[in-house]
Every structure is written in C-alpha cells, then in structure tokens.
C-alpha cells in the first residue's frame, strides 16, 4: 500500500504500547455510539436470563444478580471506531458465575448476547469464560449511565466494544455460531482489536 504523501505520523509520539494498532487514546471522553434509540430501564424491571444450550436455564433479578459474588474489571476498552479508553473500572458480576449456575451443555460453543432493544452480538463461548467477561452495573464507582448501556451491560474488554452489548438481558448459549446485529452488517464475528478484526474478511 502507498505511503501517504506528507504524512509522518508525528502525533503518535508518546503513544502507549497498550494501544492496539489503529486505535487512539480518547482520554476520559467516552463516546456514546448506538444504532438504536436508548431505552429507559428501571433496575427493578431489569432481569438477566441465561438459556439455550444449558442444563439449568435461569433468570436473575437485579437484586438476585447483586447477591452473587461481585467482580471488578480494571483495564482498557477498545471501540472499532478507533478510540480506546485506558484504565477504566467496571464492577458487576463475572459471566463465569452465571454460567456456573446455569451449567453449559458440553456442546455449547457460542453465545448470543441479547439486549432489550433487540440488539444482538455473537461471541465464542471461550471469549466470555475464564475471567474474560462481566455483566457490569457500575463504571468508575457510579451506576452505569443509560447512554452507556445502564442499568446493566455486557463487558468483554479484550474484544472490540460492540461485543459488549448495552442493556443486556439475555445470554443465549448456542451449539452453532450465528451472526448478531453488526455481524450481519459487515462486522467481524470475533473482533480482536490486537488483530484488527474490524470487518468481515479481516484475518
């Protein structure tokens, strides 16, 4: 590919090594990106269901989810639109905790995260287990704002952030992969920022 005339990339100086390729540090400015109108969900009306290829499908209320052992993520997040935010803190419950109670069937290999808006995103099950994914209701010590997916969103910080479905209300375990909303619209099925898996056809 051609070198761009007159472009030296000087503004990268001081670029943290933690930034994946093609990303920039947005600082504390957290852009809001959604494809649909923002729903208003009262915490007491929110529930999370884990079903599909599991032994014990289960639904937790807000109170029941909060009664589970809490878990915190401290680290970076990366959006496919090229911003990254470093050193964020999210708190909620590990997806492992929910899956332990629901019992994935041996042939379960994928998960579809569903939002109350109808938004969906698909992930390999291995990307939401072993301490890699959370349901979060707190950002930097405060309740997660509705515009950022509150009261509860999925958090899968090692993948591009469209995988971290806002307003999540269901994790459907699947034996076969199926594309979610953005994945049907040209985005990558996995979305690893370090491999720049942004769109279909990326490695």
């Amino acid at each position: 590919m051609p070198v761009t005339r007159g472009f030296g990339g000087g503004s990268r100086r001081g670029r943290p090594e933690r930034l994946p390729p093609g990303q920039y540090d947005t600082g504390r400015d957290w852009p809001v990106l959604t494809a649909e109108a923002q729903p208003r969900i009262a915490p007491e009306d929110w529930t999370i269901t884990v079903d599909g290829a599991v032994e014990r499908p289960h639904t937790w209320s807000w109170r029941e989810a909060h009664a589970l052992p809490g878990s915190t993520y401290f680290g970076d997040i990366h959006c496919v639109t090229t911003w990254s935010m470093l050193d964020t803190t999210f708190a909620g419950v590990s997806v492992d905790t929910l899956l332990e109670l629901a019992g994935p069937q041996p042939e379960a290999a994928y998960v579809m995260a569903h939002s109350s808006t109808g938004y969906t995103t698909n992930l390999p099950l291995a990307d939401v287990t072993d301490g890699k994914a959370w349901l979060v209701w707190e950002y930097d010590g405060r309740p997660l704002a509705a515009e950022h997916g509150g009261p509860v969103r999925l958090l899968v910080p090692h993948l591009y952030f469209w995988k971290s479905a806002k307003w999540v209300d269901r994790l459907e375990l699947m034996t076969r992969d199926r594309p979610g909303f953005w994945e049907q619209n040209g985005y990558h099925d996995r979305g690893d920022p370090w491999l720049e898996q942004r769109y279909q056809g990326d490695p």
Partner: protein
Amino acid sequence: MSAPAEAAPAPVGHWTTGTVVELERLGDRLVRLRLDVADRTDHLPGQHYVLRLRAPDGYTAQRSYSVASSPDDPLLELMVECLPGGEVSGHLHDVADVGDVFELRGPIGGWFTWSGEATALCVVGGTGVVPVVAMLRHARAHGLTDRLRVVAVGRSLAELPYAAELIEAGAFVALTRENLGDRVAAPPYPEEIAALADGVERAYVCGSVGFASYATRLLGEIGVRSDTIRIEQFGATG
C-alpha cells in the same frame, strides 16, 4: 420492543486505493474530497468508508467517513470536518491535495442505509448531513424524492455542509445561531416539522452524541416510534 435486525444485505468492500481528483476547502473546518476509487464496490446511500494514512515507517492512522455521493456518481465524495488535533482530518485539511493517493476501505455498514425502500424522515445535524446528502442525491436520480424528508440543523449557513444543496432539494433547514429568511435562529420545534412525520415508516438520525439524543426526543414528540429510528452518532474522532 422489536429487533433492529433484518437488515438488507449491504455491500462490503475491501481495502483499495483512491486518488484525489477534486479537493475543496470550505471555510476553516471543512474539506470536500472527490476520489477516483480503484476497483470500487458500489455503496448504498448512508454507508461509509475508512480512510487510512500511512507513514514511511509503516505507522498508520485511520478514520471512518460517511459517503456524500450517490452510488451513480463515478467518483466517491467525502466531506470531512477538521477537528482540533485531528490526526487524519487535520492531514486532509492541511496537507492533502489533488493527485494524492489514499488507502480506502469500503463501503461499510449495513444499518444506516436507505435506497428508497421505506418512506423516511431524516433529522441530521452538522456533518451528520453527509450520509443523507447521498440519500437525497440517490432519491433525485431515481425519482424517489417523495419518500425522503430531511430536517437539517446547523449553527450557520456557512457551517452547515451542503446547505445550498439541502435547501434546493426541499430539506427543512434550521439554523441555531443565525436567522434564515423569516425563521429566527433556533433548533427545530416539534410544530415546525410535525407534518413531515405523516406516513413515515423509518427515521434516520445522524450527528454528534448530543444532537442525536435531541433528535431522537424530537422524533418521539412528533409521533415517530422509537423502534423505527436508526442512529449514527459521532463522538470526538479526529
């Protein structure tokens, strides 16, 4: 609520290159580029492209920009707002010139598209007008103008991209910092645009994050169902 799924299959393009054929700087914030794209995949109105800059040592920077041209246009038109400290937009505004070759990837995005399949109302602000300009141009080229209604909001006529073209195409233009004809500077009122919601099957909102939440509320006030609204927002991306 109904699902924002069932999107029509949209074309997805791969990496290619584009040569700048025309470049126009409009004021100190906007630059309009028209590019000849090698091996182009035709887009749907509303889709975007990624433009990538490459330094001699291989370092790259890339950003997404909505397409303003209709699919029938032999060239690909982008309108880029220059943001303070913007790594890519700054280069396009300050350095880019006719004859430059850029890496391009597109078209991308199968959600915020319109090809005439539904009667639509678009409420767009600032450079958020760009994808809707592509829709308007497509509508005019194919006799679909009665299916597309546009409310465009800008600070001033000079700052609103494609202002003259929007007005000529019959868009309702609301300026917030200066009067336009008899209309006093103000964001659009529900009463001003309520009639445009009649028979609307789908709505499009594009603009900054603050604008998008304002526009979504406004559409709700004039009776547009929230599950028919498709939103494209941009935060601070330079």
